[in-house]
């Protein structure tokens, strides 16, 4: 297994790493393209270094394999928050000195400017995505506006779409039940809190259509199978902008997560990599990325002015997780590492009842 990975890594590195000073590995697709356009290429132009972007289905796997094989060809990678924490604990990632980060455009020191949780030991956030809920405006012209409305079958009758699994669903239920974002995980850490979350879910259980893959909820909503559904905000954005669906996102009780740049341990050009991260996480660079995709910039200074989609008149504010942070919850990786198995067991038992 390991040998194959080394071999693949070697082959891949032969392909792209020949002359680049910094190699950035990201997720490909619209996301990777955006980062290449507004981070990688501008950095190369600005510093005179060469920089290339390579794609991966999930950069966490190759990064781990490369470091374990001792043949690291990637300098910077874009990872999910949970993987950043995990790989950092395993010593796969280089710690990032937060003091190098640029202050906000308005002069705010970096650590005050970044949103809480968006700078960690081994990673700096580039954007934030969220688990939100949305409804069909043709069904509810005076649509729901709060997390509690999602659970109000009398005011807003119809089926509900929820992701099958404990994570994000239990937090959402507690917030809809009136638990403030700051207390959600403390509450969920107690048996009473778990009971409370399930009791809230009980109120809509008969009306729930459970989804599993990210592509499902916009489809369920479009088909009229559900009146409202939770979904990843990026998927809803695509359905609204590209397909013109009459969906409205409700920004209340959503749970958001960071996507981060990291430096693998043993990166060939570690110093240049740090410089790249500094460049790519300035207010301007984060705003530039947020103009291309519907994931929010994690800096307060980047949110002061409205972000417009690809230079059009279309405001990103109603779609960006970081523009809508009232009663939002930052997903707690540590909590879920500890309680994922336990709460999912309970969740599955509850589902089967």
């Amino acid at each position, binding site marked *: 297994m390991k040998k194959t990975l080394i071999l693949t890594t070697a082959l891949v590195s032969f392909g792209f790493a020949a002359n680049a000073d910094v190699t950035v590995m990201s997720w490909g697709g619209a996301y990777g393209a955006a980062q290449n356009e507004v981070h990688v290429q501008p950095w190369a132009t600005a510093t005179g270094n060469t920089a290339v972007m390579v794609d991966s289905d999930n950069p966490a796997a190759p990064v781990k394999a490369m470091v374990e094989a001792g043949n690291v060809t990637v300098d910077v990678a874009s990872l999910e928050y949970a993987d950043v924490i995990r790989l950092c*604990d395993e010593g796969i990632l280089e710690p990032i000195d937060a003091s190098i980060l640029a202050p906000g455009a308005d002069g705010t020191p970096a650590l005050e400017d970044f949103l809480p949780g968006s700078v960690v030991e081994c990673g700096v956030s580039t954007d934030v995505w969220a688990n939100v809920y949305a409804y069909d405006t043709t069904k509810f012209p005076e649509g729901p506006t709060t997390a509690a409305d999602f659970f109000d079958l009398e005011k807003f009758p119809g089926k509900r779409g929820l992701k099958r699994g404990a994570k994000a669903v239990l937090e959402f239920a507690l917030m809809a039940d009136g638990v403030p974002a700051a207390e959600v995980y403390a509450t969920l850490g107690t048996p009473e809190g778990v009971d409370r979350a399930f009791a809230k879910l009980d109120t809509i259980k008969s009306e729930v259509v459970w989804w*599993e893959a990210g592509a499902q909820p916009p489809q369920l909503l479009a088909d009229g199978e559900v009146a409202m559904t939770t979904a990843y905000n990026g998927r809803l954005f695509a359905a609204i902008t590209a397909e013109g669906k009459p969906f409205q996102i409700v920004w209340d009780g959503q749970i958001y997560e960071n996507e981060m740049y990291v430096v693998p341990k043993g990166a060939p050009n570690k110093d240049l990599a740090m410089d790249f991260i500094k460049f790519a996480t300035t207010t301007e660079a984060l705003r530039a990325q947020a103009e291309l995709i519907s994931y929010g910039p994690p800096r307060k200074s980047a949110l002061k002015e409205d972000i417009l989609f690809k230079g059009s008149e279309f405001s990103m504010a109603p779609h960006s997780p970081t523009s809508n942070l009232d009663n939002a919850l930052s997903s707690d990786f540590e909590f879920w*590492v500890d309680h994922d198995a336990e709460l999912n067991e309970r969740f599955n038992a509850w589902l089967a009842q």
Partner: protein
Amino acid sequence: MAEATNELLTTADGRPLKAALQAAQARAKRRAFLLVLPLLLFVLLTFLIPIGLMLKRSFEHDGFASSAPALVAWFEANPDFNPADPPEEAYAALVQDLARMQTDKTTGIAGTRINYSVPGTISLFKKGAREAGDLTPPFKESLVAVDADWAKPALWRGMASASNVYTAEFYKVASDFKLNDDGWARGEDNERIYLYLFFKTFLISAIITFLCLLLAFPVAHLLATLPMAKSSLLMIFVLLPFWTSLLVRTTSWIALLQEQGIVNDLLVGIGLIGDDGRLSMMYNMTGTIVAMTHVLLPFMILPLYSVMRVIPPSYARAARSLGATSWTTFRRVYLPQTLPGIAAGSLLVFILAVGYYITPALVGGADGQLISNLIAFHMSKSNWSLAAAIAGMLLASILLLYWLYDRLIGIDRLKFG
């Protein structure tokens, strides 16, 4: 029949006949063995070894044992310690191991192992490991000061159990047992899931098998009795599902059966149900049963067909000429002769249904999930050992079924085609 004789038969030149026969056949046997060798290797490499490795994972996990040597040694020396109040030396060994985990970066691995039976342990270990270097004796007090959970008897039970590489823990979890401060006990009602899902999986599989039989019997009969040209066309319809992607088929069922789907639209259109009374046939048990029956139908039709094809029509004619009505003919003459096909098809469909994953995952919704979906879930959460334990139990129950089947009906009566 030859008469039995005690006299040793020999060939013309005096060699024992048996030895001569063996020598003559040895070459043919060697060649036959060489012919099946590739298949044997293939089965060994792609089936037996992976299943063996999978089963091994279900009772073997060294995540904790390999990263906490001091504590493992202490547990070995003190097998009868009191989990409610471990002595100072146990805490000293624990702190020593935690410090080592911090430098070796194995906190996550060790914590994850204990977390399987004692939730909340990963962060506990991380916090403990970070502080371990700075702790001073007495370690009991100083560690409990970091987090009171370090004194939990359940945790100590969990660590003692995990200090052994081989464990039955995963099978206990898969049987709805939970580790609490007093040891392993059956979980609370609202936590029990696995045994219930096992039962439900077998029940749904039995229903699906029965429905398949009900639908397949007439089709197979038609296939076996229609003229060649028509039966070939019908056979194509039967096999069509085989040639279509499973996902496409499942998605078509969603389009058909969902609340805004074609069937409901039709029923509303002809006024059979009101627009607000649309039937829920998707994302529940009904959806799972319908879609899986469709997916598995060919596995029932083909064995039935292969048996029915060789039943000469003269049996039915004979029965009729002997005075039996068509129903009696079916019940007493035709049906008994199709039993090998029914048995083969049912066994095939049932076993496939018990292990089915993708269809219930897509259309099962809340109550249409089967045990295999939980196996997939635990694999996605990297809890391979628990997934392997559930799979092992599933495998064992299928083998048990197979054994029962052999005892009651006889494996030699199976006829697959």
